Each structure stands twice: as structure tokens, then as C-alpha cells.
């Protein structure tokens, strides 16, 4: 028996609304099969399941909003589910079934007596280096038990009263937030922008039943919270580099004459491919800043900013982008943009990226200096391709694009950002390799 739970479809997602079940009780389901449509505050997402089995019970009805980690359905006949890291969140507390615990061999009667006296279950006690349970292990377990349960132990979330009040009024689920206060306590700053004016003295009334807010409004709030957090926490540095892209444009033009119309290329695919390859060579910008340290990402998962005509943005991810050529990236980008725009992204397309790319060149801007999407450490921006005067031995007019990187100075220094931009430039000069 396994539970199908509300997945976390992005670092900033705290809850979601079940829009539609694509399966019913009794239906067999397979790993990777799309079983439900979830409305995050950003888009409707088709969510895959991670187990094999038969749907036993649907526990959440369409229209219900539940926190990340809440059980949506139970699946019969499924083994222990291990969701791939990043694409689905495991709730903080997963009780361990007794049958899964290895039996322990206790040698000393003293240890038995101590365990009884302290009310410690020996099956849950860790062992010493020799694999045996010692008295000190029992005492340690008793001490652990006596300590107030922290978030990983499950139960009550540790949050300040102010953080609780803000979370309640913002409809934020505390269980989905990691705290930055002393000892990991959730404090107001973790909830998002706090109230600027002092609140009234009356004690807060209980939060009204959550009514799903208008999409635009809640997306705006999500963006506001995330971007404010970024600017509050991340010391950005910015680098700008204008690059000659005549070789790339020649390549695009030549290939487009040969390719069928439906495979037609745009320069943006080459810019993205160059960025992905360059990040392989500059891993210092590809990853996340977590708990005061940089955690590099093994793959280049690029978040691509798609702006919605109705307002707002959505950042679907192209997984392992460095493994794809520019021409392979093209259909991926088109599919992603189309699904993002009509609000039908797949769950895996909203996995957390390791870096974000924003391209405002089509809007005609010269350059874009982005705001880093926490906990990532960099955002690469592309401006418009434009003909500019250039001196390269000879004076001439060449197509150029201004590429920028905004990076987290905690995680890297300017020289690293410069290395990335130089690398992108070199790759754009040899588009046949992209």
C-alpha cells in the first residue's frame, strides 16, 4: 500500500488544488503515468504517479486545496514508494513500520533493564560502532525522546507566533517551509514579506476557510514573496557582455533553409544550448545555496522564464539541458512554452531548476539583469539580437546580443561569472558544435 501525495511542484509551492482525477478507484496505475491534474498557484500541472498498483481510494475531491505532502489517494499493491528527489516532497513525518526495522541482539541484561526503566524501545535504538546496543545508546535514545520534537521528528512545526499568524492570514502551510530562525524555527521572514504597518491589537481571528484566490492574484503573490526573498537574502552581482552572434545567425539561416518548416530554428535555442554547455564548464553557478553553503547540481537543469500574456511568469525546467543539441532543444522549448501558456505543464517540467535563463530579446530590450530564483545562485539574461557597430580588426556592423549574469556573491565571485560569459561567447562563435 502506498500513498499518492500532493507533490511539491517548485521550491515555492506550499499547497495545491486538485483539479481533476484522471483515474478512479480500481484503476491500475503505473509508474510515470499521469493520474491527476493539480492547480498550483501558477498553472495546472499534470502529475505523474511513482508507484505501480491499483487505486484504492481517492481521498481528495476535485476543487479541494491541500498542503504539499497531503495524501491524495491510496494505491494498493504498491511497494514502498521512493519518490525521486526534487520532484515530489515527502512529508516531514513518515512513520517507520515495525516490520522494516532489523531485529537487534541485546547481550547485556543491564541494557535491557535500563531500556525498561527509561521506557526506550530497543528496536529503535541506534547501535555503537561494534553493532551492539550499549547502555549509552539507550541513554542517548531516552535523551532524544525528552527533547522537544523538531520538525524532522514530525508532529508540531516549530514556528514563532508571528510567523504562525502571518502564515494563517496568507494561507501558507508551515510544514512546507524551512525555518531560518535560531534552531531552525520558522520566523516571519520565512513566510514572505511581513506587514509593514503594526497590526491592530485585537487577537487575530481564526483564518477564514481558504477560498482559492484568483490565479493572477495568487501568482502575483507567489512571485512577490519569492522575488522579495531573493532581494532580501541574496547579495547579487551583475556582469554584462555583448557578444557577436553573426556565426550563430548564419547557422540558423542556413539550417532553416534546409529544415522542414515545423523544425525551424530560432537563435534562442542556440543561446540556451550555449548556456547549458558553458555551465558544464563553470559548475560554480549551477546549483543551489542551501543552509549556508553552495550545493552544486550534477545536471544542468535550466529553468526557462515564460511570460504569460495574462500577466505573470512561469518557469518550467528543461532537465539535463547540456545533453541536448540546439536543434534538439528547439522542440523541447516550443512544447514547454506552449504547455506553459495553456496551463498544462507536466509535473516533471516544474522540478526545481539548477539555474534560470530569461530572454527578453523578443521584447526588444537591450539587456536584462535578472533577479535570482532562490535557492539558485545565478540567472542568465539575454537581450535582443541587434545590428551594432563593431570593431574586430575591421570596422563593421554585426549582429550582437548582450548577455548578462546575475549571481549570488555568497556562492561565487565576479571572476566565475565572467568565465561563464566568456565561455558562452566562445560557444556562440562555433554554433555547429551546439
Amino acid at each position, binding site marked *: 500500500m502506498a500513498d499518492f501525495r500532493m507533490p511539491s511542484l517548485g521550491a515555492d509551492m506550499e499547497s495545491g488544488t486538485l483539479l481533476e482525477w484522471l483515474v478512479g478507484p480500481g484503476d491500475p496505475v503505473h509508474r510515470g503515468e499521469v493520474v491527476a491534474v493539480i492547480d498550483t498557484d501558477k498553472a495546472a500541472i499534470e502529475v505523474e504517479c511513482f508507484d505501480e498498483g491499483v487505486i484504492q481510494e481517492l481521498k481528495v475531491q476535485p476543487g479541494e486545496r491541500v498542503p504539499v505532502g497531503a495524501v491524495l489517494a491510496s494505491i494498493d499493491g504498491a511497494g514502498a514508494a521512493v519518490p525521486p528527489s526534487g520532484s515530489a516532497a515527502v512529508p516531514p513525518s513518515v512513520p517507520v513500520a515495525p516490520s522494516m526495522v532489523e531485529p537487534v541482539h541485546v547481550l547485556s541484561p543491564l541494557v535491557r533493564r535500563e531500556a525498561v526503566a527509561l521506557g526506550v524501545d530497543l528496536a529503535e535504538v541506534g547501535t555503537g560502532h561494534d553493532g551492539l546496543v550499549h547502555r549509552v545508546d539507550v541513554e542517548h535514545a531516552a535523551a532524544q525522546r525528552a527533547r522537544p520534537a523538531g520538525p524532522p521528528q514530525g508532529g508540531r512545526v516549530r514556528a514563532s*507566533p*508571528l510567523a504562525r499568524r502571518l502564515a494563517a492570514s496568507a494561507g501558507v502551510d508551515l510544514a512546507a517551509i524551512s525555518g531560518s*530562525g535560531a534552531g531552525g524555527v520558522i520566523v516571519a521572514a520565512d513566510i514572505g514579506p511581513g506587514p509593514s504597518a*503594526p497590526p491592530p491589537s485585537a*487577537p487575530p481571528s481564526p483564518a477564514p476557510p481558504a477560498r482559492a484566490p484568483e490565479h493572477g492574484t495568487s501568482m502575483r503573490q507567489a512571485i512577490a514573496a519569492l522575488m522579495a526573498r531573493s532581494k532580501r537574502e541574496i547579495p547579487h552581482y551583475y556582469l554584462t557582455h555583448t557578444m557577436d552572434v553573426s556565426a550563430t545567425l548564419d547557422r540558423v539561416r542556413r539550417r532553416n533553409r534546409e529544415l522542414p518548416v515545423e523544425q525551424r530554428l530560432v537563435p534562442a535555442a542556440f543561446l540556451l544550448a550555449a548556456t547549458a554547455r558553458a555551465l558544464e564548464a563553470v559548475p560554480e553557478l549551477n546549483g543551489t545555496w542551501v543552509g549556508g553553503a553552495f550545493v552544486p547540481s550534477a545536471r544542468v537543469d535550466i529553468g526557462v522564464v515564460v511570460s504569460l500574456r495574462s500577466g505573470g511568469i512561469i518557469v518550467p525546467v528543461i532537465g539535463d539541458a547540456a545533453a541536448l543539441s540546439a536543434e534538439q532543444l528547439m522542440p523541447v522549448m516550443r512544447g514547454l512554452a506552449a504547455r506553459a501558456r495553456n496551463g498544462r505543464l507536466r509535473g516533471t517540467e516544474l522540478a526545481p531548476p539548477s539555474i534560470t535563463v530569461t530572454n527578453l530579446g523578443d521584447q526588444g530590450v537591450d539587456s536584462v539583469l535578472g533577479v535570482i530564483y532562490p535557492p539558485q545562485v545565478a540567472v542568465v539574461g539575454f537581450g535582443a539580437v541587434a545590428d551594432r557597430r563593431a570593431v574586430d580588426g575591421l570596422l563593421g556592423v554585426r549582429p550582437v546580443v548582450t548577455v548578462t549574469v546575475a549571481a549570488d556573491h555568497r556562492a561565487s565571485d565576479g571572476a566565475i561569472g565572467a568565465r561563464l560569459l566568456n565561455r558562452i561567447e566562445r560557444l556562440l562563435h562555433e554554433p555547429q558544435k551546439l
Partner: protein
Amino acid sequence: MTMTVSSPAPAPAVETATYREALRAAIREAMTRDDRVFLMGEDVGRYGGCFAVSMGLLEEFGPERIRDTPLSESAFVGAGIGAALGGLRPIVEIMTVNFSLLALDQILNNAATVLHMSGGQLNVPLVIRMTTGAGRQLAAQHSHSLEGWYAHIPGLRILAPATVADARGMLWPALADPDPVLIFENGGLYNSSGPLPADPATIDIERAAVRRPGDDVTIIAYGGTLATALTAADQLAAQGMSAEVIDLRVLRPLDDETLVGSVRRTHRAVIVDEGWRSGSLSAEISARLVEQAFYDLDAPVARVCSAEVPMPYARHLEQAALPQAADVVAAALQLAGRHG
């Protein structure tokens, strides 16, 4: 010791004086303005006061109004109560708060209670001044901070001037109060200097004062710990944390509005109290903040108090037992999830 603090309502300062001189000026003014006012206590006359506050007043006002008393706190505080009941406006000086315990029976059972027991017929317009606090190597029988005990008693108003302006200005409104008022003078402040307000009548004995505005944490202090709090605020500012410093001024009744209002804005509070932590004034303030500002607190209320030991004599031990600026800084940073 030099203190640079702002007065609660910035009155034009005409001159600088020491805390001691300000107290003396206040007594002189009261004696001059009102014939019913007189000063009595141990060594206040010929010796000029144990801490030289009343130096020269005997010569100025004569032995009828500057009265040396026997070494019996119970007797002369009782006499003061009687004089107040009889229509005079006595100022009674007790050498230190430790000695005031001998007069606790008079203060609690008579001064604070007579109005109630007489069915509202008999007010006791008495002012008692006494020294409190440590830091001067006077050991465990002269150094404690017991004002929190007095702040427990209904019927009393408890003042703790921390600035020269308050030392100058609090006595007259205290004498004007129809009920008993106790003024606690931290011994470490007598030599401090600061601006003397031109018009001492503007000073109230109702409200706490924000001595330094800030946004990230409220540091609540009074009397001898105000300077500690302000030093800590300077150090916190250097580390990017903006501390608001509140001087309680009035320990009973507490000015909840100012305290709670500040914490509602800063969401964090550190209380600095030279008294012992258990059952202290800091405990009372902490409880009120939790009662009235619970949903605005972003961290537990923190307290920096004296070590729970009889105050040591040895200088290094005495300093170790007292709240220090570094302790306040560490407590504030801890509340913000930072470690300095």
C-alpha cells in the same frame, strides 16, 4: 561613568550636571517651593548624605527640615508615614535598598495599605528615596537590586530615574502624588553627567521613554542597565541590527502601551534587569509581552539579568555577575537567529 542619553521629550538643555547634583537641585527646589517638604534619613544632615546628595542642604535649610535620624529604618520610615498622614510632605532617604528591608513592614503594611484600610480617607503623600544596584564593590549587603519586590506592591508608585533629567524632574511630581512614591537611585549613576532640562516640570512619572528608536529588536532597561542597553544597541548597529532602547522610568505601574507598542513593531524583545531573574521585574514584563503581543513575537522574549548569587565583592566576580552589554548583544543576535 558618562552617559549620553536623550531626554524623553527633548527640552532645551541649559546646562550639564551630575546625577547627584540634579537630585540635590530637585530637593532644594521642592523645599523652596513648599514649606511642608522636609528631608530625613541616616547621615543626610551633618555628613551630607551617604552619597553626598544632600551636601550643604543642612546649612541652607536648617536642622528642622534636614533631619538626621537614628539607625532604625523602621522607626524613621514610620515617622515619615506619620508626618505624611499629618499633612507634611516628607522625603525619606534610606541608604540602600538592602537596608530598606528593615522598613518593609512600614512600607507595605502601612504606607501602601492605609488608604485602602481607611476606606479612602487617609492618603500617605510620602516619598522614599533609596540607593540600589551593584558595581561599586560594596558586597552582598549593599548591592542588590530589590526594586522589583516593591514593584509587586499595589498602592505604591515606583520610579527609577536613569538620566540626569529624570533625577532632576521626578521628585516634584512624586511629592505631588497623594500616595507613596519610592524613587530608586542606582548607585553607579551618581557621578554620571548629562543635560539638565530648563523646565523640569515637563517630566512625567507615568510613561516609559524610548531612548533610541530602532526596528529589529526592543531592548527594555531601566536605571543602571540603561547605559548597558544603549552600549549594546551601538554594538548591534555596527552588526546591522537596529535596536530600540526603552527606559522603563516607572516600574509600577508599568507603561504597557509603550512596551507592547514597540515590540509589535520589532517583533523581538530583550529585557535587561539588574535584579535576579527568578520572580523578577523582567519576568513580569516578559509575561505582559506574551499576554499582549504574543501574535507579534517572532522569537521568545529574552532576558539578561544578574547571576542568581549574593552579589560578590571581588571586582571581576561582581562584573561577571552583572548584566553586560556583550550579553545583551548576544541575546539580541540569538533572537534574530544570528550568532555574533
